[in-house]
């Protein structure tokens, strides 16, 4: 199931976002404490992480930087009422956020941003899966080639045995 993490020190913001996202059928985990959100990163794999910017113990960008180390694949977004230039630059350069959303937010915009973040996440995952499959197939191919080389070294000519239509070995050279 697609898991999404929301971090904001204001519980009412989390409730309203949970309402907004409920029809989408995602598993939405909400946290008012940065420490708890960090703990959850060790337990679950998240597709998207959305954090507030200004919070008491750590700012959102610092949290997202941690999240990036723990779960580099999760797509990071900031939802902030504090849209000054410095905080945006920090969010982009340090936490490499995918979107910077502002409060008060537009419901449609938030859902659309999460959906496109999910697309990106799935694309990365798919990409990764294909790369791994490719690597595995290559390794298999290489092992097979090595086996053939070994056989050929042991018994020269064995890899070039010619067979008849019924499977019998043809010995005469022509």
């Amino acid at each position, binding site marked *: 199931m697609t898991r999404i993490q929301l971090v904001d020190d*204001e519980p009412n*913001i989390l*409730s*309203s*976002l949970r309402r907004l996202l409920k029809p989408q059928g995602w598993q939405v985990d909400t946290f008012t404490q940065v420490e708890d959100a960090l703990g959850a990163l060790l337990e679950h794999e998240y597709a998207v992480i959305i954090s507030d910017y*200004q919070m008491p113990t750590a700012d959102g960008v610092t949290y997202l930087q941690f999240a990036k180390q723990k779960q580099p694949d999760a797509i990071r977004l900031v939802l902030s*009422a504090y849209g*000054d230039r410095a905080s945006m630059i920090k969010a982009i350069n340090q936490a490499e956020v995918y979107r910077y959303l*502002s409060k008060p*937010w537009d419901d449609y915009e938030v859902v659309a941003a999460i959906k496109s973040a999910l697309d990106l996440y799935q694309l990365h995952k798919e990409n990764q899966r294909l790369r791994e499959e490719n690597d595995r197939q290559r390794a298999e191919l290489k092992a097979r080639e090595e086996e053939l080389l070994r056989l050929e070294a042991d018994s020269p000519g064995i890899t070039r045995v010619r067979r008849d239509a019924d499977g019998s070995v043809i010995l005469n050279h022509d």
Partner: protein
Amino acid sequence: MKEAAIAQTENERLNAKLEQANRQLLQSEKLAAIGQLAAGVAHEINNPVGYIYSNLQSLEGYLNDIFRLTDAVDSARSLEDLQLIKKNIDYDYLRSDLKDLLAESREGIDRVKTIISAMKDFSHIEDEEFKPADLHRGIETTLNVVNNELKYKAEIIRDFGDLPEIDCIISQINQVIMNLLVNAAHAIEEFGKITIRTRHEGEQAIIEIEDNGKGISPENLNRIFEPFYTTKPIGKGTGLGLSLSFNIVEKHKGRIEALSTPGHGTCFRITLPVNQPEQGNDG
């Protein structure tokens, strides 16, 4: 005799002019301080507005679902149909969440209202006369205005004693308290504590604002009440906050003192007389 009389009126005229210039300075410092707080206040307001706005849109969705059910009362062929719709719209969830949605939104509106009325109390220009006022209420108003500057920097501890009403110009006392609170928050590097203490001693009321921030070095401590003296970077402070605070407290026939230990924190103490000696005459 005539010349003396002319000199006298001239003197009065200049005094009145000086008094007016002082008032303007006080007001512009207040507006500058509010300007610096504006970003923080916007943040304080945008949070509740954000979730109220979103909640209203969710509410619209809920109502559409509920209307689907009530409209079906007339058109449905059987009770089972109605029950099916009720199940489909997750009626039990709607019912319980509606209560939360409304309670949370109401809480948000209350918060916006509190902030706006605190801002209004705070920026009052007209009331320049001494009136009996509740200092604790003034402190709470000020805390509402500067909440955003404080809540990410410090825990606020209220250690309030019993205070009678004090003869003062409360909007000006609020301004002093705001200055001290914002300074205290700026002195704290990570996350600290700000203690606000009040007590009643004889004919005096005492307010203390103490932080556990970085403190003020002895050579700076002698100069903090000088106008334009500031250690804050350009654009962060006008250098007038404490000097105007000093003037305000002096005008109230009170005292303001600072005790500081570098590395441990600073405590500002304001002592105000409960009753002004000669009301309305501060010449």
